[in-house]
């Protein structure tokens, strides 16, 4: 009898590894999530629901969604272009470019906000010109969007680059030989190959865009019901000793992570069925 497949471990090793991973994740991730929900529901579901439907919470949700709706597509297009340039071609300064793409990760959110203030703030480079034309960027929606774009800049690119690197160029080269145009090649070969990586990247980018705190905090005027994003609204509530309400709003962002992943699995399953049906 063939006792086990040649590409997996024996059952005890498998369960040991699963157990270890579960332990690590529970200590690291589940416990904080649990703490958020416990705190959120400490004063009962009424307080919980009231916190979610209060006008300032709704306005914060709207602002957060708007900021994400602009910055995520922008960074997705950028991520695709950057990954294409970096992985399908060899050129001088490639390592430099890669490092520059990573750079926003290393920029403290505080600095990410500060740079926009230095550019567009009243005393910044463009400050006087903007003031003359009565254009507001800092402490308004555009500033929040710019800060979010800066912070979430590398996510899609960084997700795609190792993936496309691992896949190599063989299929694309074959397509070129067969006379495919660049667009055809991208749509028919590259995109199907990278779609999961792309989706991961977009989800990460989105989650981070919605959860960003430090940078947005610098460029937002913290005006209740106007320029507070969801994370800033949570801070406001926390500072007003409305701990339960603060954590209730935090559960929204926790649920967002779970929801996007639910979506991802659904898409995954759907495509698998389609694929197996065709073959």
């Amino acid at each position, binding site marked *: 009898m063939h006792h086990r497949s040649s590409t997996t471990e024996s059952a005890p090793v498998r369960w040991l590894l699963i157990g270890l991973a579960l332990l690590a994740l529970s200590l*690291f991730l589940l416990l*904080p999530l649990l703490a958020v929900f416990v705190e959120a529901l400490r004063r009962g579901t009424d307080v919980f629901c009231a916190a979610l439907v209060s006008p300032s919470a709704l306005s914060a949700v709207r602002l957060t969604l708007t900021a994400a709706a602009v910055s995520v597509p922008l960074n997705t297009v950028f991520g695709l*272009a950057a990954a294409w340039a970096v992985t399908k*071609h060899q050129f001088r300064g490639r390592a430099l470019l890669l490092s520059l793409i990573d750079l926003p990760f290393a920029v403290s959110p*505080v600095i990410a906000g500060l740079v926009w203030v230095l550019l567009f703030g009243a005393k910044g480079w463009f400050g006087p010109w903007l003031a003359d034309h009565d254009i507001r960027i800092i402490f308004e929606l555009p500033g929040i969007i710019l800060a979010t774009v800066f912070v979430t800049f590398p996510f899609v690119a960084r997700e795609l680059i190792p993936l496309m690197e691992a896949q190599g160029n063989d299929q694309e080269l074959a397509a070129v030989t067969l006379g495919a145009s*660049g667009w055809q090649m991208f749509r028919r070969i590259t995109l199907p190959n990278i779609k999961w990586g792309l989706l991961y990247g977009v989800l990460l980018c989105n989650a981070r865009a919605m959860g960003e705190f430090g940078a947005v905090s610098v460029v937002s005027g913290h005006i209740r019901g106007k320029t507070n994003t969801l994370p800033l609204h949570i801070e406001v509530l926390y500072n007003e000793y409305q701990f339960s309400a603060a954590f209730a709003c935090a559960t929204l962002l926790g649920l967002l992570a*779970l929801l996007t992943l639910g979506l991802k699995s659904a898409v995954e399953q759907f495509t698998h069925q389609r694929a197996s049906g065709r073959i």
Partner: protein
Amino acid sequence: MSKHRVIPGFGLSLGFTVTYLSLIILIPLAALFVKAGGLGPAEWWRILSAPRVLAAAKLTFGASAAAAMVSVVVGLLVTWVLVRYRFPGRRLLDAMVDLPFALPTAVAGITLTSIYAPNGWIGQYLAVWGIQGAYSPFGVFIALTFIGFPFVVRTVQPVMEDLGTELEEAAATLGAGRLTVFCRVILPALLPALITGFTLAFARAIGEYGSVIFISGNLPMKTEILPLLIVAQLEQYKYRDAAVIAAGMLMVSFALLFLINLLQRQLNWHKR
């Protein structure tokens, strides 16, 4: 020098990448350097060599490196389990990995603090062993690991899913043991992704602010991180000093990122 490019779209994709990069990242950062450049080298030295700045730098970079290492080990384990094994609750586990991204850093900081504080769920057990969870460099490490860990999983996961099992089967057929296959076949294939994951976790940890300030205790010379020092300078309306620390921090992290990317390129070269 320039060889003929077979795959099209080089000019377009690189042009777009560079334009966008310049507008969103480089010009704003240039503003920072111009601000910091208003001070002479002597001033730079005075600001950056202050004992408080050095202590904060040591903590920031040290804790970030340690956190990124641990993230790689735990991240590899978790990714392996998620990709290779099927067990009840796997999807939920997969979903949970993104949590540190979605949770606002401030909320993460507050919750981690309450869990690891001496009277918290975990902190009380640590206290028995004489380990102080929150309000210590260890607390900073915990927060940074929490922040950096998903980067490793999410970078390695797509590559591992893509890896397939053909090579492993071949190796097994040739009589290689499971551990040998892992070390000789799987690990090298994952190495670029692992390095990327480490880089991302490390870079992200260096800049992290929101979660750390809650858990660290913020004691000067002991548990104060660089981003907090920047904020402290801003509160005194010292934009220039803040810009100098920020610029110094950026240059060090950029050098590190650059080195790691070079290393990775070497690895890829050898593979081809």
